[in-house]
């Protein structure tokens, strides 16, 4: 059992605040992904959980034990680093065995555990080699095997796939997910890659400027962004935003279209819709087509709606050419509204 509780953790480097009062609870055996652009504080938060960085304030609990004053070795964690950090002066076998030898396990157990994790990561034929004789993908496998061999309660991963090439990343992603699910550990995984986050996570914590904006399941984060930032950061292409002005009877006027919307005291709010949630039809948002990108299964159409950029993913059967005037009808249940001042969802 290793639930991780982060309570009011803040981190300041001199005058710069990397983390503002972050609260997050990660359930036992959950796969939590910290997602955000570089500099959002996600790696700092991970390093605070690992004990490589100490929080300026707040508490970290792992498995019901307060750990923020403990060194990394006493926290029951294992970590995988972005640049692998495979010890160059030791063989693959000794790398994987390193932590087990520190625990002073008998040689039989060390060998059994090293062989088992090496088999799991498909590197059993590399055990006698040194790090310099391995490819990037193989080094990453060694790093993961070294963490798994510790049989930790918690595995922390800092962008473990970002140094691999695209094809290898795809392959490792699926493999990691299977291995970590089988190992029954609690995982915190840091990445800036939203596809990686969506495909791996039980829950995603989207971070921005030292704060967690939303922590929810991948589908929830995608469908119901809690703030404008989440909608604009997640999704490729990202969400479309248009200004909405208050009309009669609690409805809102968006680019000439009148839509039923939420109650708000404000005169102007923001309308948002995912590119794939519009359909070309008779009625809808008036759009002038600028660029057409056929992507096979569907067509990405970049348009002008009331002078603003608007992207729509249309069925590839819809015949459009640049300069066409379209009517794009948003699916009513997929429309989201944001407060322009707080940027929160309404």
């Amino acid at each position, binding site marked *: 059992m290793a639930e991780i509780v982060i309570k009011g953790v803040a981190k300041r480097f001199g005058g710069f605040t990397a983390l503002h009062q972050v609260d997050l609870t990660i359930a036992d055996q959950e796969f939590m992904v910290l997602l955000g652009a570089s500099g959002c504080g996600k790696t700092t938060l991970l390093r605070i959980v690992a004990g490589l960085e100490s929080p300026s304030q707040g508490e970290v609990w792992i498995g019901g034990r307060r750990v923020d004053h403990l060194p990394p070795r006493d926290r029951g964690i*294992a970590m995988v680093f972005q640049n692998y950090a495979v010890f160059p*002066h030791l063989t693959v076998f000794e790398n994987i065995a390193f932590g087990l030898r520190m625990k002073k396990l008998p040689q039989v157990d060390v060998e059994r555990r090293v062989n088992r994790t090496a088999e799991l990561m498909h590197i059993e034929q590399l055990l006698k080699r040194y790090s310099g004789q391995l490819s990037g993908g193989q080094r990453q496998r060694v790093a993961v095997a070294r963490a798994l061999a510790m049989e930790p309660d918690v595995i922390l991963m800092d962008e473990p796939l970002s140094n691999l090439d695209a094809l290898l990343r795809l392959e490792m992603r699926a493999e990691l997910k299977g291995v970590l699910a089988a190992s029954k550990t609690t995982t915190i995984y840091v990445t800036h890659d939203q596809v990686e986050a969506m495909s791996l996570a039980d829950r995603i914590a989207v971070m921005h400027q030292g704060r967690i904006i939303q922590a929810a399941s991948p589908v929830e984060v995608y469908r119901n962004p809690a703030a404008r930032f989440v909608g604009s950061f997640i999704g490729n292409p990202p969400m479309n935003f248009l200004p909405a002005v208050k009309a009669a009877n609690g409805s809102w006027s968006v680019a000439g279209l009148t839509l039923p919307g939420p109650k708000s005291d404000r005169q102007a709010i923001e309308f948002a819709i995912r590119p794939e949630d519009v359909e070309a039809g008779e009625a809808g948002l008036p759009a002038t087509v600028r660029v057409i990108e056929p992507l096979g299964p569907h067509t990405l159409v970049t348009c002008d709606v009331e002078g603003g950029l608007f992207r729509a993913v249309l069925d590839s059967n819809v015949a459009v050419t640049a300069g066409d005037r379209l009517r794009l009808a948003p699916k009513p249940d997929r429309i989201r509204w944001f407060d322009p001042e707080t940027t929160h969802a309404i």
Partner: protein
Amino acid sequence: MSAVAEAPVAAATADARKAGDWLLVATAILLCIWVLLPIYLLIVNALSSPQEVTAFPKRFFPSFDVGSLAFFINFAGVARALWNSVLVATLTMVLSIGFGAPAGYALSRFDFPGKETFRFLVLMTRAFPLPLLALPLAVMFIRTGLDDTALGLALVHTTLALPFAVLITFSLFSGIPVELEEAAWTLGCTRLQAFRKVILPLALPGIAASAVFAFTISWNEVFAAAVLTIENRTLTAFLLQSLGESPLYLKFAGGAALVVPALIFIFAVRKYLFAMWGIANR
């Protein structure tokens, strides 16, 4: 039209580049001669018989007559001076690495106020002229009883070698990714264990090189050695004192005995000395 105009320009730049290449090669050859010729003459004469040293014309290859070297080694006081040199140089080496390596590690791994100033000051100690220090040091050493001892001289040599030890080990430790250490911490190591099991094995060749360099600095140093020792002369101080009146062939033998070990040491550790200045040469 433009092609016609461009051709002479291209030819001119090619000429200029060629001339530049020649200049570079010529300078390199000149510098090599500047350094290598005295060493060559020293070794040739040291390995020649006394008659050949004064003879003319010289032979290009020495006759490998070890007579003058053998005479030099058996010269009264040389063995003692040699032992003193080794003792002082070894002490210097131990002290320089003992103090320098931790300082280099601290510089590479920790951020502390005044870090840049500290690095600068480390380098500045080399700008302090030794003759200025020698007299007050001699007085102080006599008062404390450190005069004419190997330890006293080693302390002075350590102040000369320490800046290099700090800077070489600093670049050495900076070249080892901090993640390796952090990985060791997460795998159950204390700071000290991580240093011993991960950092030290990786840094050891460089530390050894830095130690050899400190040894060489002490081995070659003559001024402090001449001022601060009387009975327990090191080889350099002994040669300075006694070879002035010796015949030419003995001077060559003494010079070779001094230069050759230093040359071999420096050659062995050259890549780490380049690393100190941030030139990757691996």
